[in-house]
Structure formats: structure tokens, C-alpha cells
């Protein structure tokens, strides 16, 4: 059939798209930063931390990994207010992404810690470092380096998954596409453009993460 593609609307709506891209980027930047930090802390607990905390973290990780992000998002945005915690849709989206990525990166980083040669722990111990000092100064960086590719992929996956935040009115890239098509009924064009932007963002994000990897880890990790 002769569907007539029409992209003239971009001229009118590019501020909406641009804002969407900005919000998606902001979401993933904050989500990745704090999510990985949370994941690192949880990984420490699960691999080396106090025994009583481990089941708590394990439960958190299992709950998040086995339910869809959208549902988690709904609970944060619509559920937390009933406990008296009000937040804007952006804060809720950020929080949900941090919690989500935190659980995934916990498992990934833990694998990296567990792949650390025993000798590294022993070297730290025999130099008089405490268990936490050994973890912090000796084990963490090479562990992160070991799992950096897996972690990068997960961050990209979370970025693509962030499309769901449009459902709580956070005005990300997907929201922009939906908003535009709800005004002009140009769904194909709007989705095609947003898909292309997502692809671009994913490629870009992967490059950025590679660069971060290179600067963070100047050297080969011990295997």
C-alpha cells in the first residue's frame, strides 16, 4: 500500500524530541552512576559482607531480577506516596532505575569479585590490611575491570528499558514519540525516528562506557 511517509513535523516538534533525549540521557547517567554504586555495595555484602545482611540483599536482588521494570516503577511512583514518600516522576524514574540496575550490577560485580585470585586477598592480608581495606584498595578495581563489558551491556539494556518511564509521565524519548504521535497521528514516523535515536544513543553510550573503562582501568586485571 502507498503509505506516505511525512517527516515535516520534526520541524515543529524537535524541541520535544530534544527534551526527551535529554531526559533519557539524564536518567541513564544518574541511574548508572548510583545504580552501579549500589550494586557494588550489595556485591560487597553478598561476597564479603556481614552474614546477617546477606539474605536481605539476596532477597532484594531476586525480587528485582524476577519482576518487570514497569511494575517496579509503578510501585515506586504510585505506591511509595501511600507510605508518605512523595516524589516527582523524574525522581521516581531515577529511583526505580537505580534500584533495578543495582540488583543486576550486584550480581555482575559479585561474579567479578569471586573471580579475583585468592592470592590478591592473601597479599592484602599479609600486608596487614583489613578485609575491607583489601576489598576497597585491592579487589574492587580489578573486579570492576573484569566485568566491565558485562556491566556496560547491562547499562545499555537499562537505558533501552527506561522507555517504560513514559508511563508515569516522565518526558523521556519514548514519551516524546508518544506525545507527538498522539497529536499528529504520525506513529510510524515518530517511532522510527525515536528508534533511530535510541540506536544512536546505545552506540554512543557503549563508546562512552568503553572510554570510561580505558581511563578507569589502565591495566590488565589479574586473572
Amino acid at each position, binding site marked *: 500500500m502507498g*503509505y506516505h511517509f511525512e517527516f515535516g513535523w520534526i520541524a515543529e516538534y524537535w524541541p520535544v524530541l530534544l527534551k526527551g533525549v535529554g531526559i533519557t540521557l539524564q536518567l541513564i547517567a544518574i541511574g548508572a552512576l548510583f545504580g552501579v554504586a549500589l550494586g557494588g555495595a550489595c556485591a560487597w555484602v553478598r561476597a564479603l559482607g556481614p552474614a546477617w545482611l546477606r539474605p536481605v540483599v539476596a532477597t532484594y536482588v531476586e525480587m528485582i531480577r524476577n519482576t518487570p521494570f514497569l511494575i517496579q516503577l509503578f510501585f515506586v511512583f*504510585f505506591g511509595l506516596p501511600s507510605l508518605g514518600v512523595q516524589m516527582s516522576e523524574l525522581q521516581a524514574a531515577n529511583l526505580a532505575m537505580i534500584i533495578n540496575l543495582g540488583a543486576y550490577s550486584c550480581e555482575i560485580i559479585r561474579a567479578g569479585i569471586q573471580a579475583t585470585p585468592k592470592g590478591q586477598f592473601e597479599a592484602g592480608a599479609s600486608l596487614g590490611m583489613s578485609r575491607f581495606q583489601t576489598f576497597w584498595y585491592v579487589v574492587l578495581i580489578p573486579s570492576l575491570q573484569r566485568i566491565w563489558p558485562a556491566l556496560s551491556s547491562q547499562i545499555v539494556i537499562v537505558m533501552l528499558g527506561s522507555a517504560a518511564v513514559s508511563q508515569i509521565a516522565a518526558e523521556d524519548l519514548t514519551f516524546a514519540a508518544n506525545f507527538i504521535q498522539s*497529536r*499528529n497521528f504520525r*506513529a510510524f514516523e515518530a517511532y522510527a525516528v525515536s528508534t533511530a535515536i535510541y540506536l544512536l544513543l546505545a552506540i554512543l553510550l557503549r563508546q562512552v562506557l568503553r572510554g570510561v573503562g580505558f581511563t578507569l582501568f589502565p591495566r590488565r586485571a589479574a586473572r
Partner: protein
Amino acid sequence: DALADITKRGTINIAVPQDFPPFGSVGTDMKPVGYDVDMAALIASKLGVKLELVPVTSANRIPYLQTNKVDLVISSLGKNPDREKVIDFSTAYAPFFNGVFAPADLAVAKAEDLKGLTVGVTRGAVEDLELTKIAPEGTDIKRYEDNNGTISAFLSGQVKAIATGNVVAAAIIARKPPKRPEIKFLIKNSPCFVGLNKNEPALLEKLNAIIADAKKSGELNAIAQKWLGSDLPADI
């Protein structure tokens, strides 16, 4: 020619909402029910063909139409010039009284008072188009994916006010929630239209005839009574 196709096929595929009560939601058997659904049934029976209902969302209802997976979209569509460039609309088949609702203690009486308030609305719905037009600069409009999002946001206090249909607000109040959405002012009575593909004059003409007949015969009024609890207004 779509009309000929439909007649030849003996069935008509009609997109209806299932996330927008009372126009379309589901019954306990998960089958769509509502104003739009009854309207679809009416059209099918008038055409003398079998009805296939296709539940759609605001994100995919137009693509369904454009890829000919459905023949008509009866999904409480509102009209604007941009939309009219893409699809055709029938004459109005339903009224939609929409207004701004908020708890009693919120002092809002007209559009200008919305300045600085967060107002929830269902993205792409009639009230979204209307509210966007009248809301003053500085109104924080939050557009949710579906009615459920809008209502949850209101009930959980994420937005101060919502713009929605009076029937929707009535349904919420009927459930005795802690926050009662009370009418602050009417935005507009903006009617809903049936959507169809462009360049189908035969189908459009037939459709308009059916709607005019139904209005005259009172069948449409019966549907309005059933789902909206009031008569069709005079301007429909």
C-alpha cells in the same frame, strides 16, 4: 474501496479502547464493553456484517487503521487539524464533557487558576488536546499513558488536579476514595468521532448516514443513557 471490501468480507474490524472507561474497558470475561463498543456493534449491525473487535491503546490505534488491520477506529477520538491530515473523521457520535477535577479544598475556578499547578491527563485523549489549548503558561501538565495512570497519579497525590471526563470522575467518586475529584470547571464539551482511512468517501458517507439515523431513531441516545447516564446533548 473499503466499504465494498467490508461487505464482501462480511465482517468489519473495529478498533475499540479497553483502557478508557466508560467508553471502553473490559468485563470480568475480559471482553471489551462500553460506549464505543456498543457504537461499534451498532455500526456493524447497520452494515449487516459480523463485528470483530480489536482492543487498542492510544499508541497503536492509528497504526492499526493505517495498515488496514482495522476498518474503523471508535476510540473516543478527538479531532484536530494535524490529525485530519492523516485520517478522516465521521460526524460526532458521542459527547465528552470534560473538565478539571480536584479535591474540594483546592481553589480553582477557571483555566487561569491552573497556573503553577500539576494537572494529570491521559495522553492523546480529547481532554489532553483541550487542556493543552486552554491551560495558561506555567501549568505543569503530566500526561499519563492511560486513564489508570491518570487516576492513580491523582489518588496517590502525584498531581493536584486532573482533567478528565465527568463520567470518569463520577466513577472514581463512586468508589469512595480518600480524595474526591470534584468538578472545578468544564473545559469544553468536545465530541468524539469515528476515525477511518483517507479517501474512502463511500464508507465515510455510509458511516455518517448510520450515525444520523441512530441519532434520529434514539438508538444513540440509549447508548448514551446506558454509559453516560444522560441524554445526548442537542449539539451532537
